[in-house]
């Protein structure tokens, strides 16, 4: 309606004129009515009185007319905002506490939501990410196992569902000839790996299919960082050669620095080489998988289920064709996003729920504060109502105040969140996949706004309704002190709710702390303290196996001679909590399995005789290796207790022989050692792969020597801090071979700690939220008790005047607080009992209903609540009866 719109502008812009016209009209009406009445014979005064009565009050009619005017809502809103700002500025203490409380609540929520948003909600940062799938081999031992390259090639040839499939595996190199020799992280990738993810090179091109084959010209893609570091980001880098493990590769392209891909065994690297060029016999063995994984892009129009069915058929076909390698082996498809973030999802959702509680507590707290404050304002509202404001109007005005607070809290909360998100990611980045994608984007901003608005309604509505319901006459009579009963009840309910919510959070945090304490105390099966691990690489691939073995012995001797190194051992294969390597085997004297699937698997550790002295894993029977177990003596193997239990039951395994099919060797079992927790401190009693065995690295068959020589590990027990010994170790190794590269030094303690990263992440966050909740609920209970004491000063004065002891008063007030705290704790315990079940998966070694955790947090909460009550209680006990009574 154009008329309405014109009126809207007139009403808003020419308010004074419009108001004046209304005033004139009503005055003239009064005049007309008065004259009418005078004609009936009334005196001027009486006529005017009756005229005004008939009109029903000039101001009231004005208010009715204003209420129907266009733009009324807008105008009132603006007025409310101005009024709210004035009111809030008048009580800076209340405003500050409310805004800070809300900022913490909203900030914590926003921070966590930005994690949830970045990790769970946002699509993966590739084109059409929904069509990307992660592919795995599905074996009887593992649901998601690595893929043998010959199988992968058959998948590529025979599938009908994917427009592209790409394989990758990590394969670091020694980079020489460009400054100091260094170890560069590298991945072997299929030619279509980058095109599949729609990654555009910064310079040059990606790999060509022709280059992804045995015998093709060695080419390499380099990462933008290496390009900058070694070539100063010069375009001339294209076509230049890069010497990696003594082979010259030609640079054909540069991969952008912001590229990242989160998949098993993939790290953002300095170097990418074509995987198809690798002609290692084991890599080409269908029975071996060498840590290869794959990613695929579905053809347009092919649904996930179709692809699954297609690949199932393909998998069965391969199993029939190559039973020895592929019997009972299938192909597992997982949407890429699920593959990347699937594990973290439940924890993040639990944390999101927890942080929601924090916001609830913040809201309850602010509601309570404004309720206490509105008590002092009942008079104001009564007067406003008497002057013609209706109830909705008063509610709206109070809500406006709430929204102003909520928006201020939200704004400050956004700052808190931007800081908090960074802090959370800095503390434990390794706990979170896609951490680099987390940022405060538009959706997070929207979330903050929604949280603020919701919070505003939540904490604003209760006091607003309560206040507006106040009985006009009563309030005006009581002079603003009235209604304490009802309001007092509401405040108490709020405090109880707050305490209950805080207890739930504390219980959750308590359970996490207990879990971690148990984990820290649990025995990993070795002694990680003061153990250093690192890798080294010598360009020895061209050396004969004899030379390599001699080199290893020499390195061992030099390492053990370094001052500060107590004992050291070279190792390869699996590394506890860091690297998994397994081998299929069968026991000699039992029927030989005809297929790989029927063979059992064991983790294998290739070590030197001193390994046990470094790790201090206990020897349970037989012997460990001696220097005489070398390439000239019969092969020996030491197994762990799990291996013995699983495969020999009660029998004595010593003297039995194990056949490792792929290695093509048979070894005699000479000893049994304790089990190491390979999969992290939180490894359960029955991990997917429990059997472990040790082989002397010197007895590794010749054919496998080059594979291991590329990356051989060291574990060293040091006197004092392990990382402090690095310098002298580097020096000693340099003496043996100046071309040797040392890399990835880590303290074993740190590796063990990292195995708990995700749990620590949850614990730190949950602990922070619980602490926030504790503080907020204390402020809440303090506020209410302080308010009650204030309300009852008169009564307390009378009591004291009548002879009550001060400690009676103290006890009375503390009792009031204790009643609320106990009720809250009781409700909280019941609620927590139901809710902590949801976090069972995050716990270790404690029941979700662990009585100790519950008791401790309940006690803590009661104690802190009483402490919060003590301040007002003491104030009450100090009331001077004379002053208190005179005040009335």
């Amino acid at each position, binding site marked *: 309606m154009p008329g309405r719109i014109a009126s809207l502008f007139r009403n808003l812009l020419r308010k004074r004129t419009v108001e004046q016209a209304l005033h004139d009209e009503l005055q003239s009406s009064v005049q007309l*009515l008065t004259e009418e009445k005078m004609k009936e014979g009334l005196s001027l005064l009486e006529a005017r009185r009756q005229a005004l009565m008939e009109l029903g009050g000039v101001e009231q*009619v004005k208010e*009715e007319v204003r209420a129907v005017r266009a733009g009324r809502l807008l105008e009132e809103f603006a007025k409310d905002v101005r009024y709210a700002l004035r009111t809030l500025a008048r009580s800076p203490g209340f405003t500050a506490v409310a805004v800070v409380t809300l900022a913490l609540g909203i900030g914590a929520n926003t921070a966590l939501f930005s994690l949830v948003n970045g990790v769970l909600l946002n699509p993966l940062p590739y084109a059409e990410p929904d069509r990307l799938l992660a592919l795995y081999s599905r074996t009887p031992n593992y649901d998601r196992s690595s893929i043998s390259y010959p199988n992968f090639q058959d998948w590529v040839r025979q599938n009908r569902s994917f427009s592209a499939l790409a394989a990758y595996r990590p394969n670091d190199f020694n980079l020489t000839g460009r400054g100091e020799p260094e170890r560069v992280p590298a991945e072997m990738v299929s030619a279509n790996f980058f095109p599949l993810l729609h990654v555009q090179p910064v310079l040059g091109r990606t790999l060509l299919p022709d280059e992804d084959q045995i015998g093709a010209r060695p080419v390499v893609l380099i990462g933008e960082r290496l390009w900058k570091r070694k070539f100063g980001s010069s375009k001339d880098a294209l076509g230049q050669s890069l010497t990696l493990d003594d082979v010259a590769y030609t640079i054909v392209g540069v991969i952008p620095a912001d590229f990242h891909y989160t998949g098993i065994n993939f790290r953002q690297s300095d170097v990418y080489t074509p995987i198809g060029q690798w002609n290692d016999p084991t890599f080409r063995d269908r029975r071996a998988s060498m840590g290869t994984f794959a990613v695929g892009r579905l053809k347009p129009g092919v649904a996930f289920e179709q692809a699954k069915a297609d690949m199932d058929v393909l998998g069965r076909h391969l199993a029939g064709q190559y039973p020895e390698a592929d019997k009972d082996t299938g192909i597992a498809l997982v949407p890429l996003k699920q593959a990347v973030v699937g594990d973290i999802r439940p924890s993040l959702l639990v944390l999101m729920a927890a942080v929601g509680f924090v916001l609830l507590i913040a809201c309850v707290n602010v509601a309570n504060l404004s309720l206490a404050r509105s008590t002092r304002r009942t008079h104001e509202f009564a007067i406003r109502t008497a002057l013609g404001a209706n109830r909705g109007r008063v509610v709206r005005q109070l809500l406006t105040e709430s929204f102003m607070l909520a928006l201020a809290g939200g704004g400050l909360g956004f700052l808190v969140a931007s800081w908090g998100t960074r802090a959370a990611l800095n503390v434990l980045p390794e706990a979170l996949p896609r951490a680099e994608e987390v940022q405060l984007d538009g959706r997070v901003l929207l979330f903050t706004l929604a949280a603020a608005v919701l919070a505003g309604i939540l904490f604003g509505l209760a006091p607003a309704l309560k206040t507006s319901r106040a009985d006009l006459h009563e309030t005006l009579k009581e002079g603003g002190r009235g209604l304490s009963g009802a309001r007092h009840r509401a405040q108490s309910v709020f405090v109880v709710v707050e305490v209950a919510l805080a207890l739930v959070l504390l219980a959750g945090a308590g359970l996490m702390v207990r879990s971690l304490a148990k984990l820290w105390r649990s025995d990993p099966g070795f002694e990680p303290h003061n153990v250093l691990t690192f890798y080294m690489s010598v360009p020895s691939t061209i050396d004969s196996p004899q030379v390599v073995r001699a080199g290893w012995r020499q390195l061992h001797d030099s390492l053990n001679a370094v001052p500060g190194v107590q004992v050291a051992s070279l190792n390869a294969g699996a590394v506890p909590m860091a690297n998994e390597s397994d081998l299929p085997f069968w026991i000699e004297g039992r029927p030989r399995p005809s297929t790989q699937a029927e063979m059992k698997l064991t983790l294998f550790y290739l070590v030197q005789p001193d390994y046990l002295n470094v790790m201090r894993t206990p020897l349970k029977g037989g012997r460990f290796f001696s220097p005489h177990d070398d390439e000239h003596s019969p092969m020996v193997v030491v197994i762990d207790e799990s291996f013995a239990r699983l495969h020999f039951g009660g029998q004595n395994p010593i003297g039995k022989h194990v056949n490792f099919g792929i290695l093509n060797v048979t070894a005699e079992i000479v000893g049994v050692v304790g089990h190491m927790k390979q999969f992290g401190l939180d490894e359960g009693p029955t991990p997917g792969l429990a059997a472990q065995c040790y082989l002397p690295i010197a007895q590794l068959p010749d054919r496998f020597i080059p594979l291991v020589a590329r990356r051989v590990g060291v574990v060293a027990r040091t006197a004092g801090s392990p990382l402090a010994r690095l310098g002298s170790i580097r020096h000693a190794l340099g003496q043996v071979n100046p071309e040797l590269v040392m890399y990835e030094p880590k303290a074993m303690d740190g590796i063990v700690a990292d195995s708990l990263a995700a749990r620590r992440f949850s614990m730190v966050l949950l602990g922070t939220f619980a602490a926030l909740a504790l503080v907020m609920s204390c402020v809440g209970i303090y506020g209410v008790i302080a308010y009650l004491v204030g309300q009852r000063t008169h009564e307390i004065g009378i009591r004291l005047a009548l002879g009550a002891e001060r400690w009676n008063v103290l006890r009375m007030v503390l009792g009031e607080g204790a009643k609320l705290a106990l009720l809250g704790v009781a409700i909280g315990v019941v609620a927590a009992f139901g809710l902590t079940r949801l976090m069972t998966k995050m716990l270790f070694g404690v029941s979700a209903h662990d009585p100790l955790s519950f008791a401790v947090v309940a006690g803590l909460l009661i104690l802190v609540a009483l402490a919060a009550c003590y301040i007002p209680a003491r104030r009450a006990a100090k009331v001077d009866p004379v002053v208190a009574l005179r005040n009335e």
Partner: protein
Amino acid sequence: MGEKRTDLLRGTLDLLILKALSLEPLHGVGISRRIAQVTQGAFQVSFGSLFPSLHRMEEKGWVEAEWRASENNRRAKYYRLISSGRAQLKVEERDWDQLVKIMSAAMGSA
């Protein structure tokens, strides 16, 4: 502050005002008196309801207002029905007739 009767027949107040203005321009008090007169005193429209209605109609463009001298030479704000207001009156009269017919039929049959 509206009385029960006008609350009950919220729509009818507009109709009565439009009807009252259909004969000649009137000021607020005049409209009140005219409605009382034509309904034989059955409707005592309160000014708290009348003025908001008038102002809403003015914003909607059904009536126009101008200040002029009253019968006893007082300045008063007169409301005059204009074409869209007349159209609205027709619509409301038709609706009203229909409502009355339906209600009478309903009451008669019960």
